[in-house]
């Protein structure tokens, strides 16, 4: 998740899972302020990714071509 270049490729489900983990870590409460704010920023980033994906999602049908 650190490599920002991959963002477009991250799957919704994975982003959602990562968001869940961030919330859990924040809830554990054993972070320094600095770590906490970093996690928080990470959480916001994931939240934005998830929301954007969910809002922009469109159902589309691709047909398996060929051999069948």
């Amino acid at each position, binding site marked *: 998740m650190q490599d920002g270049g991959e963002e477009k490729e991250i*799957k919704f489900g994975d982003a959602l899972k990562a968001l869940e983990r961030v919330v859990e870590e*924040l809830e554990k409460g054993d972070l320094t*302020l600095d770590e906490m704010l970093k996690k928080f920023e990470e959480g916001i980033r994931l939240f934005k990714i998830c929301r954007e994906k969910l809002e922009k999602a469109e159902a*589309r049908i691709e047909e*398996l071509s060929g051999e069948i």
Partner: protein
Amino acid sequence: MLKKKIFSVGEIANFIKNLLERDELRNIWVEGEISDYRKVGNNCYFSLKDERASIKCVMFNAENASLREGMKVIVKGDVGVYEKRGYYQLYVREIKIGGIGEIFIKFLEMKEKLEKEGLFDRRYKKAIPPIPSTVGVITSKEGAAIHDIYNVISRRFPLRIVLAPVRVQGETAADEIVRAIEALNERNDVDVIILARGGGRWEDLQAFNEEKVARAIFRSRIPIISGVGHESDFTIADFVADVRAATPSAAAEMAVPDGREIMEWMDEAMERMLSLVARRVGRAMETLEGMRPERMMIHAVREVERKRERCEGVVKEMEGVMNSLIASRRHDMEVLHTALEAMSPYRVLERGYSICIREKDNKVFSSIGDADIGDVLRVIVKDGEAKCRMEEKRRK
């Protein structure tokens, strides 16, 4: 008993009842034609007849049965005696419609065989992924099923559908379905498969009863949801599939989560994060202020009060964000950004504090042990930063 001279009607009825109601006549399948059909409430009354004979039948709670006079059916039930009226009848639990005797027997035999082999065992059932990215669909290109599935998915949780078009009835249907299952399994982007066919006569669903289809479903690495025919139709495919849905639409509902629920969960998660961070930042700010008594001149007491108020203000601001988040499930991300900025440690700089960061790894210098003499520290103030080398240190 028969030695007695005179019997009561009840005694004879009971004797006959015991003669007829035995295991051989329980759970039996009987084929015939419907006549004298009547429906009273949810109960159906009819006779089943063939060229030689006729037997009275009753089916209780037959909500879904759409029976007609003259229809050829196979029914499953128990023979019982209705003592009050003095006749025996068939208490029907299941009805299969159509002249389907042969194929139905084959279906039962196949079902028994595969069941014995363990193909229906619960322990082989694969879990449906909670949040798929791509759904594979095996069904006819022309049928209603693909439209139903598309509609449900675009309403609930829009995503990519990979359709493997097959014929769902006729000679080649079973082979096409097998190849479709294999083809989808060769891809690495399909998370779950829906095997579907719209309703039809039971005999038209035979491709879904074929052994090779059953085995292909069993072999599939990707979980399969079956949605074949109507509520009341079961096929072998339904038994082998990881999950059976009553219809194609129901299968689509099982394949994808509810987007609205996820949205709600996300808003809740954000709300929790905001409140956690707000509490923590508020506390940190108080500590920060409390730790610098030497800087506090008497006239600064009011200044501290002001800062405290500011802290509270930040927390309130965040609560405001949370509330708007709950109120409008689709809030503007900008609001969040503002809140985040208000929370940022850089905001503290505005108030005359500075942040020290170790040059070598960009970690915050917050404890005297974090850096040694000679280390370079970056000191960030509100309008710039300075590179400094440590000359001396001392623990408090």
